[in-house]
């Protein structure tokens, strides 16, 4: 039977092509937009993840206790083995190291005397290795006001206003001056490769961005890091998986009395992001509901049209003696098949689109006069597991429902009036 219907669908293009195209379009639109809005709703959480909390973060217990003070003397050591442990045990995430530090920047004049000094808030990330994804994650390329990304470890990016205050230009040398993780004095020269603006005054006026290798050398933190952040490869925070991971990781170290032992924190448990996350999730659930509802109406209409167009055919089939029930069933079966095919195609296209938007996003910087880069100006989609099935709700159910409604007409028909229809 199905084989027969399938042949019908393939051979009768007018019966199949249009509905399938419409369903595919509708379903893919639903998926892309649902994904996009889920992403947009969680942008603030996401932003926090990228700049501060990661999807999960590993710190030493003592560091976590005092994390507001950027206590690098309490930082994690033996990070190489920890990272490789994390990579092999939790391969779903990308693990990156970061160091935050404070200190002073001193800009020399032509004679090497100080021409300006200012307190610096440093962030050291994997700037040089593109595979770490850090440059993209922190939106650094877009934040660059002048100059370019560092090519070498001895180059640094500094806040645009900071550079102005210290009268520094691209290519100038600047000396960082601070304390190592052991408390010793440390100096390091950097060449300014570019200036950045995040739109957050505190950062623009004092930020210095370094490659982590330079910071390790400078702060005497060989094989150390203040924090290790984990990001799910697809860029989407998965609350359940993160919580499970936090549990399993911390349980293994429960009996370890070392106050410098690593401890894992999920995004939810940091910065009180949990409630915001819940809000964002429920909002995006509402959006998905709206989409599915609207798309259902559209596809239901398509189903109706599909059914109506075939009144004549049904008339002939009735006249030839086919039972009403059989015609009705075959109509519904056909609709189910078409709905399935359309939904499959649509889900495929939709997921491709959603993944595209997840990776590249839509830039809204142009809509904003005074863009603050700390806030995301690129809106991204978020591919959540429900995107894989929500398309079938409007695609199959609404389509079948529409056909079922229009098919009710079959029962109302009197065989006598069929020939009337044939005349027309």
């Amino acid at each position, binding site marked *: 039977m199905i084989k027969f219907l399938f042949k019908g669908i393939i051979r009768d293009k007018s019966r199949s092509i249009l509905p399938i195209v419409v369903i595919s379009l509708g379903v893919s*639109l639903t998926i892309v*937009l649902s994904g*996009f*809005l889920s992403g*947009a*709703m969680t*942008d603030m959480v996401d*932003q*926090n993840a990228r700049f*501060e*909390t990661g999807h999960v973060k590993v710190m030493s217990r003592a560091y976590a206790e*005092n994390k*507001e*003070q950027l206590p690098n003397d309490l930082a994690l050591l033996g990070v190489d083995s920890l990272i490789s442990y994390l990579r092999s045990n939790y391969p779903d995430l990308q693990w990156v190291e970061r160091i935050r530090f404070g200190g002073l920047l001193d800009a020399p004049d032509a004679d090497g005397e100080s021409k300006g000094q*200012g*307190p610096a808030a440093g962030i050291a990330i994997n700037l040089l290795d593109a595979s770490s994804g850090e440059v993209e994650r922190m939106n650094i390329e877009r934040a660059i006001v002048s100059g370019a990304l560092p090519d070498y470890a001895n180059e640094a990016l500094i806040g645009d206003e900071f550079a102005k205050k210290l009268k520094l230009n691209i290519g100038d040398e600047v000396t960082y001056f601070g304390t190592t993780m052991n408390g010793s004095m440390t100096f390091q020269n950097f060449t300014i490769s570019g200036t950045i603006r995040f*739109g*957050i*005054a*505190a950062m623009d*006026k*004092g930020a210095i961005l370094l490659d982590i290798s330079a910071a390790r050398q400078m702060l005497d933190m060989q094989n150390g890091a203040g924090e290790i952040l984990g990001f799910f490869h697809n860029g989407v925070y998965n609350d359940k998986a993160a919580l499970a991971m936090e549990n399993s990781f911390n349980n293994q170290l429960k009996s370890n009395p070392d106050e410098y032992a690593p401890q894992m924190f999920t995004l939810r448990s940091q*910065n*009180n*992001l*949990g*409630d*915001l996350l819940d*809000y964002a999730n429920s909002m995006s659930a*509402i*959006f998905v509901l*709206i*989409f599915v*509802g*609207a*798309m*259902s*109406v*559209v596809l*239901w*209409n*398509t189903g*109706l*049209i599909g059914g*109506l*167009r075939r009144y004549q055919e049904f008339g002939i089939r009735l006249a030839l003696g086919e039972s009403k029930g059989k015609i009705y069933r075959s109509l519904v079966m056909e609709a189910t098949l078409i709905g399935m095919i359309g939904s499959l195609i649509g889900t495929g296209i939709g997921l491709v689109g959603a993944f595209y938007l997840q990776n590249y996003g*839509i830039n*809204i910087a142009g*809509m*904003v*006069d*005074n*863009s*603050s880069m*700390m*806030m*995301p*100006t690129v*809106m991204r989609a978020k591919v959540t597991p429900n995107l894989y099935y929500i398309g079938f709700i409007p695609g199959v159910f609404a389509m079948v429902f529409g056909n079922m409604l229009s098919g009710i007409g079959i029962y109302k028909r009197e065989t006598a009036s069929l020939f009337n229809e044939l005349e*027309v």
Partner: protein
Amino acid sequence: MKLSFQLAFRNLIGAGLRTWLIVGILTFTFLVILFYNGLLDGWNLQAKRDAINWEFGYGQFQHKDYDPYDPFSLQNAHGVFDARNAQGLTPLLMRPASIFPNGRMLSVTLKGLPKNQRQLKIPVDRLDKQEGAIPVAIGKRMAKTAKLSLGDEISLRWRDKNGTFDAENVKVAAIFNTTISTVDQGQIWMRLEDLWRITGMNNEATIMIADQPMPDTSFKDWNYVNQEKLLQNINNVIEIERASARIIYFILLAIALLAIFDTQVLSVFRRQKEIGTYIALGMTKNEVTGLFTLEGSMYSLFSMFLGTLIGVPLFGYLSQKGISFGAFTADMGIGMGDRIYPSFSPSLLVSSALIVIISATIVSFIPARKIVTMNPIDALKGKLQ
């Protein structure tokens, strides 16, 4: 016109389930747009109000050496002010100091506000003289960072005006809860009178907070920074949020309108006999087009009605009770309260309603235009065109 209205109404009610589905979706969309905008407005208002109440006042005279982003600037950023010229100004003195929670040195900013001030919400009025220790107020975040609770004493070390070390125990006499992290994290508040006494900096201040907007002026060592400039950061963040919100509800609206559009296309296609009948009965094609357009835009009227039914109690409740986002602590340069109270201004309500009605009318009109090009006789016969 009245006839068209009645006809359109009956046709829609007659369509049953589908009408209600569309109306439901449109209502939902309308409510979400309202809610989302109201939330942003509420957040904006609240963030600004908090910033004004806790930190900025209606403008500030800042000492010329003061740089809010350079803690080291505090060393020299203070000066004597003339109380006679400082009517309506609340002096605030800031001094660098250290505390030692768990034996780790933590640099803090010591801030003094007059005990009878009403300008900022910092509870200095709750700092009554206590036995021995100087009473101080700290914020919740600071209490967490320094692991302090109400009644705790901790050693505070500072320098007096000559640079001589001084240290004394201070007692946490008040812990306040604010959305503004810059008056919380790393800050210890005491009465200005106490701070003057322990530093010997009588009649000195770092900034003076105005209780009403003033013209941009500067005198001697003091530069006026107006409120708008102080609030710049909040405006920036809200603007971005608004831009992304616009995209979100544009998409929502578009998809709801798509459903209307599609239904209209179907109506025009299915109801040709009906269209033909109308024309045969003497309606002009334009009148029929108008009828169909009215039917489409009536979805939006229905949803306004339904939206009012649901929205008034729901939003009334929300703007009273607020929505909890927890104490979202990450510093985005803008405060976010434990609860945000959405704000629904009349202009927001009217403009959102107009957007929905107008756009619904436009998408209803586009497919209905086809009626003008129809052949009435074919239409009457029900011949599919």
